[in-house]
């Protein structure tokens, strides 16, 4: 059970929160959120000291640097997102704080389990453990914010269920051919039309989860309707796990048939880059804009994977790891502004925020504006923040295997992306403020933003430790 030590700890923690929820008085429910953050942070720290190598369940689960990389990413993302939304959840759903925290913990548990799976059943169970709590979390605000939250949850649920069905169908074909659910058994399959169909179905199913074009339709609606702190989590952590699932099934399991699936990934990457970047331009709604920008980011993520090399996987891991503080940070800033403005009776509401929400942010709160600018620059891939290296590395990986045209496409579209990111930065720095009031940010949220900001800047200046870790993790994937 050694490789599962962290996961067991997390499961125990989730159980603790569940039980504690029964015994805490309504006015003390806030403690549950804090407890959950503490559990996640504790496990994150413990991950640096515990030895989690080895295999479990007679080889169905394998530990090591590869799994550890994702475990840390998921734990960190969960902790930061919970922390950022602590006050918000306490305010809006005072009686359901335990539930909220429990759902996040369960989802994180799915994420920490998934990358180590070397058995397809195990993989699917972990994948669903990650996904099902997200449906619940997306609909959390269905009572008070009107139709948007319900729509968000329903879309996520229907698309998620459909994609799971597609994934399972694809897997059943693959497993049927191989006669085993073990990855090692799949690896030796000869190429047949049926296996081809199975692989394409798998790509489609996982593409839905990742929000890769043309399976991205749910992304803007869900991001717009769901509560922002939850979106900050949804927009980063499941993406990293989706990436892990892709690597496990394709790069590890079906690596013999890369000639079949690599071109598909390349095409999807190009299509996603185009769709995400071009559709982000006309979005007036800030959450929808960031949703399409998130779709575009998945295109860059796939680019590293489409290189098909171990190095490419390493650089994709680096990309995913920098994407977590960056995009989480951006949504937390959006959340901070939304929350501060929601006291205004004329406020347009969470789901209806336009870019003009950020008008004059630099004058209302210089620090928040600076954080916002740096996150946006990181998304745009500008130097001295983490995103620059992430983009550079996936470009390198893709270029090395001769995908020069994809790199040029990505580079040109990065300029397009800059246009809409600058639109947000311009509102914050150039436009006069709509409201003269300052911005009060609660300490937990401010702390979460500062942690994200530090991560983005530190990785931007000193990318070496993270890069080395990502490379080690990628080498250990096989």
């Amino acid at each position, binding site marked *: 059970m050694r490789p599962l030590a962290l996961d067991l700890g997390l499961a125990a923690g989730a159980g603790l929160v569940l039980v504690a929820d029964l015994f805490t008085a309504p006015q003390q429910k806030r403690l549950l959120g804090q407890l959950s953050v503490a559990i996640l942070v504790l496990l994150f720290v413990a991950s640096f000291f515990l030895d989690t190598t080895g295999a479990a369940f007679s080889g169905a689960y394998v530990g090591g640097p590869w799994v550890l990389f994702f475990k840390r990413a998921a734990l960190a993302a969960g902790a930061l997102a919970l922390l950022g939304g602590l006050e918000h959840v306490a305010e809006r759903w005072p009686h359901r704080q335990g539930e909220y925290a429990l759902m996040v913990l369960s989802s994180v548990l799915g994420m920490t389990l998934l990358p180590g799976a070397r058995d397809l059943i195990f993989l699917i169970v972990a994948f669903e453990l990650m996904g099902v709590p997200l449906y619940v979390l997306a609909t959390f605000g269905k009572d008070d914010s009107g139709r948007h939250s319900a729509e968000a949850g329903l879309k996520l649920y229907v698309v998620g269920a459909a994609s799971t069905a597609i994934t399972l169908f694809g897997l059943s074909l693959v497993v049927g051919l191989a006669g085993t659910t073990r990855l090692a058994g799949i690896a030796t399959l000869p190429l047949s039309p049926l296996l081809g169909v199975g692989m394409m179905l798998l790509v489609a199913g996982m593409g839905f989860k990742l929000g890769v074009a043309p399976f991205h339709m749910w992304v803007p609606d869900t991001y717009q309707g769901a509560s922002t702190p939850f979106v900050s989590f949804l927009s980063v952590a499941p993406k990293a796990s989706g990436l892990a699932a892709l690597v496990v099934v394709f790069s590890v399991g079906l690596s013999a048939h890369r000639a079949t699936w690599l071109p598909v990934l390349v095409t999807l990457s190009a299509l996603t880059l185009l769709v995400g970047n071009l559709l982000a331009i006309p979005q007036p709604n800030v959450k929808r804009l960031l949703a399409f920008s998130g779709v575009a980011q998945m295109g860059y993520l796939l680019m590293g994977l489409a290189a098909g090399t171990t190095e490419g996987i390493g650089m994709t891991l680096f990309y995913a790891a920098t994407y977590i503080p960056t995009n989480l940070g951006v949504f937390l800033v959006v959340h901070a502004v939304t929350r501060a403005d929601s006291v205004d009776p004329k406020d347009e509401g969470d789901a209806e925020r336009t870019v003009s929400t950020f008008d004059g942010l*630099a*004058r209302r709160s*210089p620090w928040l504006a600076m954080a916002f600018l740096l996150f946006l*620059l990181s998304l745009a891939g*500008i*130097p*001295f923040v983490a995103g*620059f290296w992430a983009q*550079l590395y996936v*470009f*390198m990986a893709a*270029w*090395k295997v001769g995908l*020069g045209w994809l*790199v*040029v496409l990505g*580079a*040109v579209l*990065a*300029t397009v992306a*800059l*246009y809409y990111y*600058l639109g947000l930065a*311009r509102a914050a*720095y*150039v436009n006069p403020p709509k409201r003269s009031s300052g911005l009060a940010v609660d300490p937990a949220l401010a702390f979460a933003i500062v942690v994200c900001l530090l991560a983005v800047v530190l990785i931007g200046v000193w*990318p*070496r430790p993270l*890069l*080395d870790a990502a*490379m080690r993790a990628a080498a250990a994937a096989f």
Partner: protein
Amino acid sequence: MSASPFAETMASFPLLSLVTFLPVAGALLLLLVPGTNERAIRGTGLFISLVAFIASVFVWRRFADVTGFQLVERHAWIPSLGIGYTLGIDGISFLLVMLTTFITPIALLSSTHAIEHRVKEFTISVLLLETAMLGALVSLDLVLFYVFWEAMLIPMYLLIGVWGGKERIYATTKFFLYTMLGSVLMLVGVLYLYLRTNPASAAFADVLEIPLTRTEQLWLFAAFGLAFAIKVPLFPFHTWLPDAHTEAPTAGSVILAGVLLKMGTYGFLRFAFPLFPEAVGVYSVPMMALAVIGIIYGAMTAYAQTDVKKLVAYSSVSHMGYIVLGMFALTKAGIEGAMLQMLNHGISTGALFLCVGVLYERRHTREISEYGGLAKVVPVFATIFMIVTFSSIGLPGTNGFVGEFLILTGTFEEALSSHLDATLAWKDFLLSWRVVTTVFATIATLGVVLGAVYMLSMFRRVMFGEIKNPKNLTLKDLSPRELLYLVPMVVLIFLIGFFPNVLLNKMHRSVDAFVDHYRPAIVKARSPETVAAREGARAVEAR
């Protein structure tokens, strides 16, 4: 002779890092100063930029008369990918470093009245910009260079976008997107070069070792050249410049004209020429043609302007054309002239923008027709403006003369020393290097006359004649603060005009080595004989 311990410490002291990162340290310091205390903020900003200037004076003192890079600092940054933190200067970058540290305090000083809101952010932006510019100039690692190159965009974007004129959003977005498009394609080129090294390294010295085929060079030059050409800006990539200049605040224009544009020409000299000599040879004629078109087009468009700042902006297009022309002529005189002219343009156009700023602060208009007869009201300002105008035209005794003279001499030298083959058919004869360069040099010389036409006509309309507008009667002459930032510029104009060798001596070594080393390959690629030889070889192959 044994060096004292102190001297040894000094020799290993990371002076370039200090100069480069001082402004950033200042910017961080400023974050702690409350935004309401504007005097303290302006004072700190100015102080820090002056300290950076003084530090760069130490660079001047340490700068030795040798070939190759000096004051080199080399540290691992991302060793697993071969990306390093490598700094160093030579005769090509050294004077631009000095120019940057010289212009920044002047720009800050000039903004005391012009920038009234959000002083803290303004000062921080200028300081960050200074670090990015210095970093790009001293980087000897391609990735590090690119990092600084890109980082220049953000503070400039804010400078134009926040403190600019009415159309600032349009101008700043255009500026950013134009330069970004050029840069990302350069990044692709950097990646290509980087992946050709073995073991992987982005160090300039390692990249230089790559044997590149002709086709590779042509493509890579296109990728790098586009980024540099947009920055210069070379006709027809110049359209962002008039907008950016017109909308930028005075300090932004001064830095933009003074230093930022030089990044393009510097990029050509530092990276494009050494890395892709054959491509430089092939593209010589088109590049020089664009430069000459820029000279004439910029001058004629400048003449047609009614807005004095736009006029100066278009004059930049014209002047930068000379620099590109001198570089591609590739004679020692031409390159030294181009490098000197980079400084000169920084000083005289910077000073012109400062003068326009002085006018604008008084009358809040830049329409030439609003002025007239100012020489009687503001004699001191008129004198300084006149000196700067002369420097921009290139009158003997001013810095502009030396630079333009060297460039034109260099171009003619190149033209007249090349082979004149009268046996060619008339079509080939007209396109031969000799004829083409002679034509370019001649047109460029005519451009000097055009330069005098638009500058002097502008000066006449602003300064001489009757005072038609009663508002101009009460204008105040220069304040001590304005004198403080204009006089150093004027002093430099004359110093370089009379003693250009002080600066030229600093670059001789590097330029000599540069020309000796790269000229043969470039000349081989552009001379018609090799073309003929290649076609002959192809014909043999075909048989």
